[in-house]
């Protein structure tokens, strides 16, 4: 938590004969993050690929082209194939497949192109069918220029009046006009100008002879025949697919793994007699590598730990407890943190559901989201990203339910009890009397909502600046102290805003009793605004600190802190906005359901309610609240401390799903 897994810089050295075995061993373990060797010199050069690489590459190229021809990229074999079988069948199968598929795929492609071509011709011919003139008569005259095309508006009148000796045929269709115009060559430019004004688009007629009507019919027939051919080829391909798909996918996986290993030397420094593998490994697994190398490489390769040089990029493997882990998704979406940086996943784990829950703040929607999240996790077990997303939605939905139940006391935009000010409003009292009363009313306690948002923002930003302090402390004490100056500004601004807000909402018990009590009431009126002296003092001290530690240029960003704080008002804005829309819908639909007395209307009303609710839950609610909740983290929070750009820990490893190897 907060810190990634501890890494140790290691070097594996060995004699060149043991390179194969070492690579095999490292892939088997899957814990060494290789650093690519790039600086070649006289002594050490990048290694040669293992001898199998060329042959394997050739096969893979063929195989992948076959996969493409057969369109089986997404095929998933039912069971894994044994590597022995793959090896023994490979050559034979490749020959057969190569012969069968490529020619079939080729002719399929050709027929498809032909069909497209013919369809294009039909498209070109169809507009001129009504004229019933043989196609060859449309152009090819010595002294006549012909225009065939589609205009937005009818140009006949303009043409006949302005161009001498022209013949225009027009066929008006739904939204445009098909125009055929014959003009003496002299009037060509004038005519094309007029046509352009009418939005003329030329139709390129195919070089055919005869009645367009008949030709179209013929073309249709030809297309039918071609499609029949296509179906036959498709059937043939299907047979091949049935027989070989499993084998092909398994082989592709196996060969890809082979090539991965065979080309690893390209990332390694080798000399005539030895090799050096540079890398990182999780500290607690170094010994594991040592033992494995000893047993698998017969003492020809060794691992040494070295103390890293300063500038080196340590790969980052985030380390978080299982419930927090899904929120790493959000981190990876932006950038991997640097090794020395604080990993903010834990904060996301806390704040995201809170923000999200506050914005949705509805038991009904919340529970729907819980169900949605659970369903995603259940349906998409194989996709790690979707699994994480499911967990995030689940957590958000849970917090939304909590807020909905205990704070806002409402479900599906309908309160448990009608508000005191408006006893006639629809509520769940119609169905059941839930013994929970709202602490806050979205619509009526808007100032409190904003204040709570700002408090959340204040806490969130404080954590952000603190992280910034911790991140900077090891390499720049000055910058670290600068963060404290920023904190002072933040505290001052926050206190001042609270004072103003408290002033504006004097009636609010929440504001006065909870938020304002810690701030000493020493204030003065300035230009009509109540300014708290302690707050002012904090801001001044902070600004001075910023000038000293970060330079005068940083002053421009003081406004930024203010913006950041206000930005949290979006929490309230989303909650209020969403609440208002839900109320509006319910206001329109409820009378239909309860008061119409007509069962059909009632059912329609319920349906409309469901549709609108679904819309709000999944689009406005989940999507935009999610975006807002994550934005507050990305923009307001991360920018205070997060640099990112770290290297993700990606050890030498592979995954066998469709092929098995037994020793």
């Amino acid at each position, binding site marked *: 938590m907060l810190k990634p897994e501890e890494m140790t810089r290691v070097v594996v050295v060995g004699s060149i004969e043991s390179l194969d075995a070492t690579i095999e061993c490292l892939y088997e373990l899957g814990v060494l993050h290789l650093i*690519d060797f*790039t600086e*070649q010199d006289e002594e050490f050069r*990048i*290694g*040669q*690929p293992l001898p199998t*690489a*060329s*042959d*394997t*590459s*050739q096969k*893979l*190229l*063929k195989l*992948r*082209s*076959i*996969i*493409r*021809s057969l369109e089986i990229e997404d095929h998933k074999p039912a069971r894994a194939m044994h590597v022995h079988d793959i090896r023994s069948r490979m050559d034979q199968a490749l020959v057969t497949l*190569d012969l069968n*598929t*490529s020619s079939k*795929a*080729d002719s399929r492609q050709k027929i498809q192109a032909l069909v497209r071509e013919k369809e294009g011709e039909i498209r070109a011919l169809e507009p001129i069918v009504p004229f019933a003139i043989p196609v060859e008569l449309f152009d090819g005259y010595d002294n006549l220029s012909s225009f065939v095309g589609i205009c937005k508006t009818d140009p006949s009148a303009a043409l006949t009046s302005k161009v001498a000796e022209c013949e225009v045929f027009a066929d008006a269709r739904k939204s445009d006009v098909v125009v055929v115009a014959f003009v003496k060559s002299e009037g060509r430019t004038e005519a094309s100008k007029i046509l352009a004004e009418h939005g003329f688009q030329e139709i390129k007629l195919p070089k055919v002879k005869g009645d367009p009507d008949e030709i179209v019919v013929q073309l249709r027939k030809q297309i039918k025949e071609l499609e029949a051919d296509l179906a036959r080829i498709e059937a043939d391909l299907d047979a091949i697919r049935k027989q070989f798909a499993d084998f092909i996918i398994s082989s592709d996986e196996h060969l890809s793994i082979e*090539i991965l290993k065979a*080309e690893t030397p*390209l*990332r390694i420094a080798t000399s005539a007699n030895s090799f050096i593998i540079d890398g990182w490994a999780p500290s607690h697994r170094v010994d594991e590598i040592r033992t494995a190398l000893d047993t698998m490489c017969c003492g020809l390769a060794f691992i040494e730990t070295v103390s890293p040089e300063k500038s080196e990029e340590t790969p980052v493997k985030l380390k978080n407890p299982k419930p927090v882990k899904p929120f790493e998704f959000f981190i990876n979406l932006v950038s991997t943190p640097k090794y020395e940086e604080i990993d903010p996943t834990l904060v996301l784990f806390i704040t995201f559901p809170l923000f999200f829950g506050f914005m949705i703040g509805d038991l009904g929607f919340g529970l729907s989201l819980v169900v949605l999240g659970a369903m995603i996790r259940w349906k998409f077990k194989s996709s790690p990203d979707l699994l994480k997303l499911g967990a995030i939605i689940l957590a958000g939905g849970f917090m939304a339910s909590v807020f909905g139940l205990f704070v806002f006391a409402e479900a599906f935009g309908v309160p448990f009890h009608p508000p005191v000010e408006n006893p006639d409003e629809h509520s769940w009292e119609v169905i059941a009397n839930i013994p929970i009363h709202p602490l806050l009313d979205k619509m009526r306690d808007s100032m409190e909502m904003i204040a709570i948002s700002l408090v959340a923002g204040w806490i969130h930003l404080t954590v952000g600046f603190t992280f910034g302090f911790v991140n900077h402390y090891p390499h720049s004490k000055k910058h670290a102290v600068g963060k404290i100056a920023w904190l002072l500004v933040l505290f001052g601004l926050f206190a001042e805003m609270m004072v103003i807000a408290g002033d504006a909402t004097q009636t609010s018990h929440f504001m006065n009793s909870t938020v304002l009590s810690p701030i000493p009431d020493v204030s003065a009126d300035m230009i009509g605004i109540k300014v708290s002296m302690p707050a002012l003092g904090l801001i001044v001290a902070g600004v001075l600190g910023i000038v000293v530690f970060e330079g005068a240029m940083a002053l421009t960003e003081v406004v930024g802190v203010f913006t950041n704080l206000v930005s949290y008002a979006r929490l309230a804005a989303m909650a209020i906005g969403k609440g208002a829309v839900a109320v509006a819908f319910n206001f329109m639909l409820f009378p239909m359901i309860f008061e119409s007395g007509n069962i059909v209307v009632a059912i329609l009303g319920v349906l409309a309610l469901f549709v609108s609710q679904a819309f709000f839950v999944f689009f406005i609610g989940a999507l935009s609240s999610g975006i807002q909740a994550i934005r507050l983290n990305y923009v307001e929070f991360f920018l205070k401390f997060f640099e990112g750009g770290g290297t993700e820990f990606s050890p030498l490893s592979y995954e066998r799903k469709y092929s098995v190897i037994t020793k």
Partner: protein
Amino acid sequence: MWFAGNRGNYAYACTRVKAKKRFLLSRDVYSRLLVMDVYEVGRFLGETQYREEMAKYASVYSGANLVEVAVTRNLANTYSDILGFTTGHLREMVGNYLKRWDIYNVKTLLRGKMTNVRAEEIVDTLVPAGAYTEAYLKSLIQSSSVSEIMDALVADAALAITPELVREVVDAGRLAPLEDHLDQRMYYDLLKVVKGTVSADKLLRDFVREEIDVTNLKVLLKLKAARIPEDKIVKYLIPGGMDYSIEKLRALAQAEGMPPIIEELEKSSMYADIREPLERFKTDRKLSGITIALDKALIRKSEKFAHFYPLSVLPIVNYMIRKKVEVDNIRIIARGKASALSTTVIEDLLVV
């Protein structure tokens, strides 16, 4: 932007191109490719941006041919992709810049046709990214004779092919005059279409003029090194360069031998980029080092331009150049490997 006429989707296109740029192969990758054999190179590329084309052509070609065809097609696809996602005036500019591939295609087509290359093979080495569609080029290739192709090309006023050139090609079988005519014509047209009056156009125009400079310098170096007299050199020069006017180039052509050009280059804005090969030229008299350095200098310039004007056509042009260079590099590696050239020789040919 929607409120300022149809200027084009700069934000979208430039960021998209910038994202594309991150997928260009890095120097480290080249050094690894140099160690691989041609099949491994093919397979490796099949796992990068060239995946689609590699898989598509692996059934027809193999070895260096496969790599060459696949990367060339990928280049064509990338270009039409870029042209496809730009809009408005931006699209026009990109389209104009891409017209050079029309020239390339016409040249390749005629060359292939005259040397009896298989039709499919010609088609696969084309880069249909300009105004000529692939279908049109295919129909040209299917024309039975060179003279028929020339007839079709003469009809295109943009190419401005004179009857004299047709005679050279059809009767004498000499392509050279036509090739040079087309290359000059391309720049001539480009400068005509991309006027300096619109500010967006001006950026592109300036860059094209820099490009003309580099092209002219290369031609001048080549011809001077071959001791061609001034009156013959002049007809190969392209007017409109940025730093080197025709007059200036003519003076250089007139001057005795190579030293004046070398001196001129030492004063040029690209000197920092070409210093080393220039020094080397003084001892080994090999031009190719300088020309590669000039190409690199132009790329660097376009990089700089793209950086100065991040929301203009220049980042897109920059990417298109970089992509072409990458494709050239890959082809050089594959072909070089196939003809068993040594790694150091291949390395020297790369523009990295």
